[in-house]
């Protein structure tokens, strides 16, 4: 395959970026999208005469669709044209010979560009730190069947937990909203008894952090669901909305007046 690539190049977060055009030849249609970029970088190394070599930076790690590191906005869609896949699971057979492919980084205020196609997604970690956890139990290994959980709830929690936190929802959303990510992370705990202990604070803390970081609001366009590589449903957003409301109206903090029964 012969390809023309238009790739966003940016030195660092503060630098002004630009698109650079690259030509590639002899790309196998069995090649994965990231392998194609590896070949391009290899070519850049071989062609470059002076050091340091300026290769194209892009995020990747497991390359089997489960880590959520890869994050490319290909021809106007996060993770490229295929549905329910990450970039690393995208193959060149989904493109035609002679195609021009435009590759951009995720675009969102809270996701600043680190270099080229790499963005800083620390914002997601901060949201998780705000409430996306359960209290740690110490002691012996608990029995797996000690806490009964309704099968349907376990399935829904598992579906929500499938979110790999790649940020495609933010990239796809016209408002750069992180609602689907936060909703998935809230849902996976809200559905399970283990998550009930922090439930009163969790959703409010995570939403407050999300707002503080400058993500946009949800306008129920559902582009996030359509572009999510893990097919996370917007039902989770509705669940988060319910959870937020019900936790707000049922929260009754007893006044702490010091001292216990002892």
């Amino acid at each position, binding site marked *: 395959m012969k390809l023309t690539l*238009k790739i*966003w190049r940016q030195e660092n977060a503060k630098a002004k970026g630009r*698109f650079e055009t690259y030509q590639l030849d002899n790309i196998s249609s069995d090649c994965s999208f990231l392998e194609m970029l590896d070949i391009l970088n290899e070519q850049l190394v071989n062609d470059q005469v002076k050091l340091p070599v300026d290769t194209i930076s892009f995020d990747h790690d497991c390359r089997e669709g489960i880590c959520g590191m890869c994050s490319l*906005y290909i*021809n*106007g*869609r996060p993770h490229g044209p295929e549905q329910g896949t990450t970039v690393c699971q995208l193959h060149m057979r989904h493109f035609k010979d002679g195609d021009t492919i*435009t590759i*951009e980084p995720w*675009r*969102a*205020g*809270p996701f600043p560009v680190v270099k080229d196609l790499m963005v800083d997604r620390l914002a997601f970690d901060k949201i998780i730190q705000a409430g996306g956890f359960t209290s740690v139990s110490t002691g012996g290994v608990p029995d797996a069947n000690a806490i009964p959980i309704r099968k349907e709830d376990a399935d829904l929690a598992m579906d929500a937990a499938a979110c790999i936190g790649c940020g495609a929802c933010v990239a*796809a959303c*016209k*408002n*750069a*909203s992180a*609602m689907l990510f936060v909703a998935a992370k809230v849902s996976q705990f809200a559905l399970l008894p283990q998550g009930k202990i922090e439930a009163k604070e969790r959703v*409010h803390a995570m*939403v*407050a952090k*999300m*707002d*503080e970081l*400058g*993500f*946009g*609001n*949800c*306008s*129920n*366009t*559902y*582009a996030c*669901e*359509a*572009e999510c590589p893990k097919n996370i449903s*917007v*039902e989770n*957003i*509705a*669940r*988060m*909305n*319910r*959870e*937020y*409301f019900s936790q707000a109206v049922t929260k009754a903090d007893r006044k702490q007046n010091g001292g216990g029964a002892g």
Partner: protein
Amino acid sequence: MRKTDVKLSSLSKKYFMAFAGLFLISFLVVHLGINLFILPITADHELIFADAVHFMSTNPLIKVMEVVLFGGFILHAILGVILQLQNWNARPVGYKVSQKSQVYSPFTRFMIHTGIIIFVFLIIHFMNFYFVKMGWAEPPQGAHIVEGQHDFYNMALNLFSSPFYCILYIVLIMGLGFHLHHAFQSAFQSLGLNHPTYTPVIKVIGTIYSVLVTFGFISIPLYFLFV
């Protein structure tokens, strides 16, 4: 905290948007129901219309609801603008190539624009009717206006006798229709009312509602244009 933030979380703003929106949605049905009596659908349609207008402008409960309605509308408009500004701020650098996903609906993307259309319509609407009722504006002159007497029926007839007004009315109401199409199901989602069985039903009802309301309102200028 951002400047535009009024100390309401993103979700709280959405609840207020949804509640106010649903209230406005229900109000439109009442308004349309009365408006349709401008058309000769029954022998005494003019009397029924006059009775309805009298009820709506004198009943104490409706007076209270009027305050709720204006408050709800203003809240909905202000929050809508705040949310939109935040949304635009959330992506300082845009994409070069942006493809519409399969779920793309122009109605969702243009909520702020159709919202502004509705706002413009309401300014015209208020100048034509409400301000006249309150005595803040002179009743419009025309063939249907009897001197010193300005009932809503004749004021409406007077306005609809102008083809320019009819066409403007149709265009602006179309904006309302597009707004409603997205608004209906969106309000339920914002309130957390999403269910695998009922959500598709809500979406269908929302489409039927927006089409019926739009064509209901438009039928009046169409009648005066063509009949």
